[in-house]
Structures are given as C-alpha cells and as structure tokens.
C-alpha cells in the first residue's frame, strides 16, 4: 500500500524532471522589462524609448554636463540669431539596410515628422520648424520661424527626430508605419516576438565603437515580483529602473544584501512632486496650499519610504537643472506654521473633533494616484498621516492609469502626483507642457489669476535668444509657482539598477528612459 502511494506521488515528479534543461547563452545580456518594445518606429510613440535608442540615432546628443555633443552631425553652426541651424553630417554612416545616411535622408526624415505635427504637439521644436533644406550631400539646414533655444536639446531626444532609412518609408511617410526597422545605431532588431522577447544584435557596419555584448535579449515580464525572481535565478542579468519606479526600495535593498548582485543609482534625475489644484474650492486658497506645503515631512518620505535613495526636494526643479538655481520661497516641515495658516484661512478645529471645519464644511481633500507606481501608495499614506496632524482629512484614491488620467484632465482632484520628465527634458520641455489642458500642472495652475501670463512667459522663455533674459523669465516663473505653493516638491528621483556581478560597464544615459547597453560587457 505504502509503495503504491509512493509510486503515485513519484510519477509526476519524474515526468516533470524529464523536461528540465540548462539555459546557456554566450555573451548575451538578458534584460527584463514590464513592457514590450512594441513598434519602435521613432517617429511615433508606441514603442519603448530604450529600444528605440538602440537602433535609431540623432544628429546630436545631450551630455551629462548639459552641453550638446556631435553625433550623426559632426559639427553645426547657428545662424540668423538662432533662426537657422546648419549641420555638417558624418560621411561614413549607412543605415543597416545599406542605404546611405546623407542630407537627403535627414530632410526626408524631418519632413516625415513634420507631416504628422498633431502627434508631436508636446514638443515646441516641431511647431517652430519652417523648412529643412539640403545644401549639399552632407550639409543640411533647419530653418525656424523664431529662434527656439532648446532646438539642439530636442533634436537629441529619443523621439521623434531620429533617422530611419528612407527605404523603409511607406509612400514617403512614416506616420502609418515603416517597412523595416533600419536605423544607423549600434544595434539591429534581429528577432521579435510580441509580448515575449526581442533580440538585438550588433550592427556590423556601425560607424562608431561597436558594442562588446554579442546580443541583448529584451524579455517581457509584466509582473515585478516575477522579474525579481528571474534575476535571482539568473534567467535575466539586468533590471534597469527606467521611470525611477521599476523596483521598490525593499526589493532593491534585499537583493543588494544578498551580495550576489551589484546595485547602482543614478544622480538625482527628475522631480517627484505633489501638485495642488488652485481651482478647487478648498485648495484655491493660497494659505491652505501653503499650510499643506508646511505639513509634509519630506525627510520621513525620503528615509522611511525611499530608504534615502532619493534626496529631499525644496524646489520644483533640482538646482542642478539648467536655469533652476534660483532663489524662491521654500517650505520646510513645520506643522505649527501650517496650523496657524489654516486658522488664518478660517479653517478651525472644533473641540472634540479631529477635522477642521469652516462654515459647517469639513476640511477634506481628494488625492488620487496611479496604482501602477510602486511607491506612490506608501507616500500617499504618509501624507494622509501628516495632514491628519494639522486637522485635514485626506481621501486617497488609487486608480488605474486611465481613470487617473481622466481625473487629471478634468481637474477633478485636490492633490495629484506630478513627476517631471528628468534630464534633458527638464526644464524646457516640462514647463512647455504646463500649457496643455491634459496635464495636471495645467489644471492645477488654472485657478491662478495670472495663468495666462504664466503661459505667455513660458512661450517667451522658449523663444528667447538672450540667456540673461531667459534666466530672468525662469526666475519669475519659478518664483510665481513657489509663492502660490502650487507644488509640494518631495524628492528628486533616481534611476535604480540591479544586475549580475558578472556584468560590467553599467552606466546611465542623460535621459532616464534610455539604457546604454552598448557600454556593457561580461567579465571573462
């Protein structure tokens, strides 16, 4: 009888063990992301930026120090007081389908982007380009309607101004898809299975230094816990925390403590802030907004939730961000001042109650966040406790992305998160977005009496040719926003990376959305 039991239990295990096999790969990096690379046409927005950056290149690149470096353009001249940019192109570059990269290819690509202007409304440069002219085979000129200071910075972004082989265009355009992913970059997309994996191999004709890895395999693992276990097992060797929130701090530290992995954190890269809606009945009062700013214990967030992985923020943009080292009003944690401000605003605490009231109305605020984000729930709960200390009830609503965005778009919130896009988008591209109704920033600023002036100033900043003047305008903008307490800066986020100890050369690009795979290699 016992033997029977044993046999019945052993048979399934034996069957299972028959299918076990080793997983061996040679000089190939297995990277995992929760997202599929999708359509990596860089003139659209469907694909993952890190994958687009592997295959498609730009005329220039943004350096860590804020300067612009040559790339497919070896040099350039700024003419007509910033209205004309002349680029001298490299002559040793080909697309990986054999097509030559030259001035004509640049013009065709830029014209294809401009033919789809509605899709690039967020980017100021697209609306500023008047024409693109071929001067000779390797010289091209970009003519602008007005001088636009972030021109080179925006030309260096991952999308849309990256170059696809004109052979891949459909009817001379790229907006309805491309026939192949032929770029000039160090990698070629060799194999792709939707929602499963993508294999990138070295572009043998790459004009620059070739990658050291033979291939990068991009695995799609939607569940974060599964991804961490895949790393522990060795199925993948790299988790790169694009967006700053791919890995929560507990998992990050636990894995670091095992001693089997190397961890790395970028320098502060983007701002994590709370935006306060100036158009809502309670938060329309500047005193209430200031009280909320004084009530947040940022140190507790940085140390208690983020385990000191992020630095406390006092200003909307870190002072290291261009034009952001300005003197503005800051709000350090002080519940006493917060209470006084609320008293002054008429919100009194009735005896025996915990929530303040005014004209019979409770001081109750709505705070919504996207449940997809790994740390936002914890921060919300801490804020709820902070606000409770000064007599404010905070209703936290965790919502899936689209509902959160619907609320954002209609301004149906008192508080919401606002994450800046990090370098090199900050501050120019980020403040440019303040003018679009779909952003929480726009909705939150709408109650300010001078919202129109704020938007006009942003326009002036972006088209100003005088650096001094531009700095003054930035100073005015940041001062207005700080005085009105529209934002509660919490921390400056950092990109977190966990990887196998055999992997070397792991580093960061300027943009948190790109991953420099070409610098990585395995220790032999």
């Amino acid at each position, binding site marked *: 009888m016992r033997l029977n039991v044993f046999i019945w239990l052993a048979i399934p295990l034996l069957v299972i063990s028959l*299918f*076990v*096999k080793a997983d061996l790969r040679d000089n190939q990096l297995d990277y995992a992301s929760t997202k599929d690379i999708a359509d990596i046409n860089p003139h659209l927005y469907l694909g993952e930026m890190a994958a687009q950056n592997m295959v498609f290149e730009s005329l220039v690149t943004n350096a860590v120090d804020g300067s612009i470096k040559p790339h497919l353009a070896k040099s350039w001249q700024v003419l007509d007081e910033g209205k004309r940019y002349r680029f001298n192109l490299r002559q040793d570059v080909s697309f990986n389908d054999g097509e030559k990269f030259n001035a004509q290819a640049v013009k065709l690509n830029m014209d294809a982007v401009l033919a789809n202007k509605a899709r690039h409304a967020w980017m100021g440069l697209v609306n500023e380009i008047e024409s693109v002219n071929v001067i000779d085979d390797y010289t091209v000129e970009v003519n602008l309607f007005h001088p636009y200071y972030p021109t080179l910075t925006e030309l260096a972004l991952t999308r849309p101004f990256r170059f696809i082989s004109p052979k891949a265009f459909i009817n001379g355009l790229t907006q309805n898809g491309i026939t192949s992913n032929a770029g000039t970059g160090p990698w070629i997309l060799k194999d792709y299975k939707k929602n499963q*994996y993508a294999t990138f191999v070295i572009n043998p004709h790459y004009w620059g230094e070739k990658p050291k890895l033979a291939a990068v395999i991009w695995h799609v693992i939607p569940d974060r816990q599964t991804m961490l*276990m895949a790393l522990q*097992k060795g199925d993948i060797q790299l988790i790169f925390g694009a967006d700053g929130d791919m890995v929560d701090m507990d998992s990050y530290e636990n894995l670091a403590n095992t001693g089997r992995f190397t961890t790395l954190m970028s320098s502060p890269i983007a701002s994590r802030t709370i935006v306060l809606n100036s158009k809502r009945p309670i938060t329309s009062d500047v005193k209430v907004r200031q009280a909320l700013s004084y009530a947040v214990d940022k140190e507790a967030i940085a140390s208690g939730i983020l385990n000191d992985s992020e630095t406390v923020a006092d200003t909307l943009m870190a002072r290291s961000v261009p034009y952001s080292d300005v003197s503005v009003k800051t709000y350090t944690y002080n519940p006493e001042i917060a209470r006084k401000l609320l008293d002054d605003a008429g919100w009194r605490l009735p005896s025996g109650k915990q929530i303040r009231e005014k004209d019979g109305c409770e001081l109750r605020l709505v705070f919504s966040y996207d449940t997809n984000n790994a740390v936002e729930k914890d921060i919300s709960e801490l804020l709820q406790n902070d606000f409770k200390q000064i007599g404010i009830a905070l209703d936290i609503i965790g919502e899936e992305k689209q509902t959160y965005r619907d609320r954002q778009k209609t301004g149906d919130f008192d508080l919401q998160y606002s994450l800046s896009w990090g370098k090199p988008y900050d501050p120019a591209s980020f403040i440019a977005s303040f003018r679009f109704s779909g952003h929480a920033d726009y909705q939150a600023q709408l109650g300010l009496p001078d919202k129109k002036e704020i938007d006009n100033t942003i326009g002036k900043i972006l088209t100003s040719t005088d650096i001094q003047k531009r700095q003054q305008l930035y100073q005015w903008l940041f001062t207005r926003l700080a005085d009105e307490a529209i934002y509660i800066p919490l921390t400056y986020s950092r990109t977190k990376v966990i990887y196998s100890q055999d992997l070397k050369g792991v580093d960061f690009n300027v943009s948190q959305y790109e991953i420099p795979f070409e610098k990585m290699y395995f220790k032999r």
Partner: protein
Amino acid sequence: MKNYIIHRMLMMIPLMLLISFIAFLLLNLVPSNPAEVALRVGNIVPTDEAIALMQQELGLDKPFLIRYFHWLWQILHLDFGRSFIFRTPVLTEILNALPATLYLAAATFILSLVISFSIAFLCVLTRNTWVDKVIRCITFTLMALPNYWLGLLLIWVFAVYFDLFPVSGMLSFNSVLLPAITLSFVYIGTYLRLMRGAMLNQLQQPYVFYARARGLPESRIILKHVLPNALHTTLVSIGLSIPSLIAGTVVIENIFAWPGIGRLCVAAILGRDYPMIQAYILLIALLFLVFNFLIDLLQLKLNPSLRRH
C-alpha cells in the same frame, strides 16, 4: 434529436446578441472618451483637434444605436475593429494570443484530470483513514490559496530554489508546467471532490459487491469498474470548467509572462482598449455557450433516458 440541436443552436443567436449589446452598452457608459483614450495609449497629446479627428475616425460622432449596429455588422464580417494599443486588427491580436492560452488551458486540464483522478483513486482506496483525510485537507487548503500568491510561491521554490523550470515566458516545453500546476490547483480540488463522491457512490452499487464476491482485488475493481462509471457523472462539471479555465488564465498569464489572451485582456483593461475588451467579452461568452451546448449533447449521448424529455 435533430430538432433539439437546431433549436439550441438557434437559441445561441439571440443570447449572443444580448451579450453583445450589454458589452457595447457597458463600455459606452464608462466616463472616458474612447477617442481620447485611443490618443493617450498612443502617447499622443489629446489636443481638441486630435480628439475631434479621432472621434471621426472611430465613428464616435454618430448616435449610439447606429454605432452598435455598425459594430455588429463589422463583427459579422469578422472585423472586430483595430486595437487602440497595438494599432492592429483586434482579431489578429486575439488569434495570435489564443493558441498560447489554449495550450496553457489544455495542459492545466490534463494535469488537473491526471492528478485529481490519481488522488481520488488513492482517497477511495484509503477511504476514511488518516491518509484520505490528510490528502483532502492539503488539497482543499491549496485550493483555497489565491492563485497569484501560489504562482509566486511555486516560482520561488521550483524555478529559483530548485532551478527546475524557467521563471517565466513560453520559450520551451517545461515553461508551461509551473503556470499549469498553479492553475490546476483550483480544479484538482473540485474534480477530486466530485470524483471521490462519485466513486464512493459507485462502491455501494450491487455490481461492486458482485465483483468483490468474485475475489477481484479492490484496486482493480475501482480502476476497471468504478472509475468509468464515476466518470459519467462527473463529466458535466468537468466539461463546464473548460471555458472558465480559458477565461481564468488572466492573472496567471501576467505572473508567468505567458503571451495569451488573458494578458491581452489585462493590457486592454488597463489601457481602456475598448475594441479589444468587447471582442474578449464576446469570445468568452461564445465559449461558454458552445461548451454548454456540447456538454448537453454529450449528456444526451451518455444518458439515453434524457432524450425522451
């Protein structure tokens, strides 16, 4: 019999129409503007002009009923629209993902049957002893565990610690085993209860006493006589669990990065990909109706006395 089959098949048409109407209505009641959603999932800033253009493109500027009948007409031509997320025909996406789900569901089904029948056999052999009680206790406890948690636990033990399986994906044959085992726990418990009950019931039948009187060993009686008879009575419940098995892969497909329709459905829900969600609802509804029908036919085949009614 023929009339019955035709009648049942015809009944499916109004049922599917009703389901399609409810699916269309419910998704139209969601406050998000589908045009705006379509733009957002494509990472396009939803300016007023872009929204107006997209509304026109999606036909959202027309009245509700016209849109519904237009959608229905398209479905009759096997056109489920284009996915907001992937920008490809919904049907293509579903047909690409369906084999993976069917593969997982089939593996789960076979595994559940083999394991539950084996355990049921063991329980019947050792009925009312501590072995029977312990096995049932463990099975029902495992059945009660949330399968996302169980999935992660199994990955940790069998993939990470013992290194027997890949953690996720669908790259080799053994990748299907862990998700199938995880999914099968729910069904093992259900089938075990049914099989054990049916077999114990059969053991009371006169033919069993006769077999015992002939001196046949207990295990042979159960395997050769009791099991086939018990199968008849459990077939209906087992058959009905197939569509719910296909529909129930949603969470597990996400945890194990399994590229099936469950994952497609989760992505569609999170991204408010309306055409995809509507097609998914119709597909699952159709599966339930078809399997219901097939099981009823099978019952008629197995039990001729039902045909008289």
